[in-house]
């Protein structure tokens, strides 16, 4: 029974979650774009005329990637937000790098991109976000979903860290190494529907399943969550730039 459950989580549920997330994101985007445009400008005028001010789209892109308002008003928060988002990007690349078709780390390297550091940065950043959210005044404007999302992210990262650490630093050697994960992901990409247990034979397989389960949950919740700001940060900043 448990084997069947593990198989469901690591193969069919992954497809379901990804499809759900894609359809959900498209629906949310369509819901927004089908609404009428705002009848007048929502621009806020800059302090002084600047080059970026005269190029609203470029200005908005710079706003999205550098978050100048956060840097100005809460520099420590900006540092963690910057680290978090950069590490997320690195995390995505690191997972893609597991695919045999993609080789970013040197072939034969037993380490994921970042040597486990990416996960640590993410975990620490999320801990900071939690600490901030539990404190006044942010606590007063928070809703349960805010805490649950952070908790979910924390659990995804900590299980990811565990897998990474178990691989890299376990004195018993590499229990489940990169080639095994590569085989699992390759199977997913090629829709072989093979049971990952056949290739992921390490003793901490349960942690891998938990990690995948939590990531699936995140994908399922994604279209309903504020993570969607990822897609709308640019158009919203463009509105402010005019």
């Amino acid at each position, binding site marked *: 029974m448990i084997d069947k459950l593990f198989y469901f989580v690591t193969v069919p549920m992954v497809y379901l979650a990804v499809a759900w997330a894609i359809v959900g994101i498209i629906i949310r985007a369509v819901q927004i774009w089908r*609404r009428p*445009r705002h009848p*007048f400008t929502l621009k806020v*005028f800059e302090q002084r005329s600047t080059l970026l001010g005269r190029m609203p789209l470029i200005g908005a892109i710079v706003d999205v990637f550098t978050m100048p308002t*956060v840097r100005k008003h809460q520099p420590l928060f900006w540092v963690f937000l910057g680290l978090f988002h950069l590490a997320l990007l690195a995390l995505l690349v690191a997972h893609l790098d597991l695919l045999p078709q993609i080789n970013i780390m040197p072939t034969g390297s037993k380490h994921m991109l970042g040597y486990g550091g990416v996960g640590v940065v993410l975990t620490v950043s999320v801990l900071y976000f939690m600490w901030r959210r539990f404190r006044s005044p942010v606590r007063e*404007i928070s*809703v349960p979903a805010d805490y649950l999302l952070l908790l979910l992210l924390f659990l995804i990262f900590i299980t990811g860290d565990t897998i990474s650490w178990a691989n890299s630093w376990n004195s018993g050697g590499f229990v489940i190494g990169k080639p095994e994960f590569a085989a699992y992901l390759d199977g997913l990409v090629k829709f072989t529907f093979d049971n990952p247990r056949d290739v992921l034979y390490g003793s901490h397989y349960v942690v891998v399943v938990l990690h995948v389960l939590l990531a699936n949950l995140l994908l399922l919740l994604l279209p309903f969550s504020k993570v*969607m*700001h990822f897609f709308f940060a640019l*158009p919203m900043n463009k509105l402010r730039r005019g």
Partner: protein
Amino acid sequence: MEDDQRQELLKLFRERLTSAVRMYMENCTRCGLCIEACHAYASSPETRYSAVGRAQNIRRLFDRYFKLSGKLAPALNEAIDLDDGWLDKIYETAYTCTGCRRCMTYCPFGIDTQTIQGIAKMLLIGSDKEPKVLSMLSDMSIAKGQNIEQTKQTFAQAVHNLESEVLDMWRSEGGQEAVPLDVMGANVLYVALAGKHSMIPAAAIMNAAQEKWSLSYFEAVNFGAFVGNPQKTREISQRIIDEAVRLGVKEVAICECGTAYRVMKQQMGELPFEVISFVELMARYLREGRIKVDRSKIEGRLTYHDPCQIARNGGIYEDPRYIIEQLTGEFVEMQPNRAANWCCGGGGGLVAMGEKDFRMKSAKVKADQVRDTGAKVLATACENCHTQLSDLNEHYQLDVKVEYLSNLVAEALVQD
């Protein structure tokens, strides 16, 4: 609340959901960055008076009625039913927000709280809970537009009575009317407020510049915008637009009233004439040498309050500073200033509604900011700001003289 009424209100809510508003509704991360941006929070500090605190009242309704998650798991985002109790809560936050949009300069996404409060105000109108004084004032403006032919004569007489005061400020050339009305093909249609303080200095300045101008029969202030009724906002502005078109003017200059300027400049769509603020017109006259001012008239240090709707929301930063440079050598900036300036705390209809206790309490940061300049004269270019700053002056004993820029210019006019 009856279900029929709720459905009616939700229909109004839906109508306000433009693509921008929908993005604002769905993508706030509740990072809290905007909290300290609001003068009301900074002066209290109570999070219900923060941008996100106010917006959450509306967002929770949005979640309940427009999102699947609010139907399946309402507790997750604290989705809430729309009822009379919640409307009372909405009233409190909508009519304590001045619509200054300072919070937008903090939010990493630029979420516009004023626009979200537009939904709150619409729900209050729909449930007949809006501040009646604002509705009444908007209706009066609209009625004036409908009965203009009957009131023109009285208005012309009242304006005629002001002429001697205008001439005291500037002796016009022979043949030039001190306060002209109905001037076909005028370069400028000047739209004043109801009080003579908004007509006399402006008339003197335009006469000094030998402008071909005409005074509008209508007052600039738009109570429809304060009460958040787009239909009334348009009707009130439309009276002026029709008049400008009838006279065939090149420019409509809005007096020192921030909301009137922003509504006419940004919210009325394409117009067959230019819309400018009177501040811009004064700066133009000075730059072109059409008027000259005496630099020794103002005694003591002067500071300038950027009205939110003209500066942050209208982009007029440098013209008032240019004017001030011509008027005095003792100018001191408030800190922060321009787009970052603190709101005076009187916008969004609060001055018209009275609300003095709240206005004073919520604008303590503004009073501190003025006091820190050590100025003796506090100039501004908006009637709402002027009233609020005068009240703050008295309440916090700031010991400044609050002045309109136009009045400072008119009093310093140099007659060759």
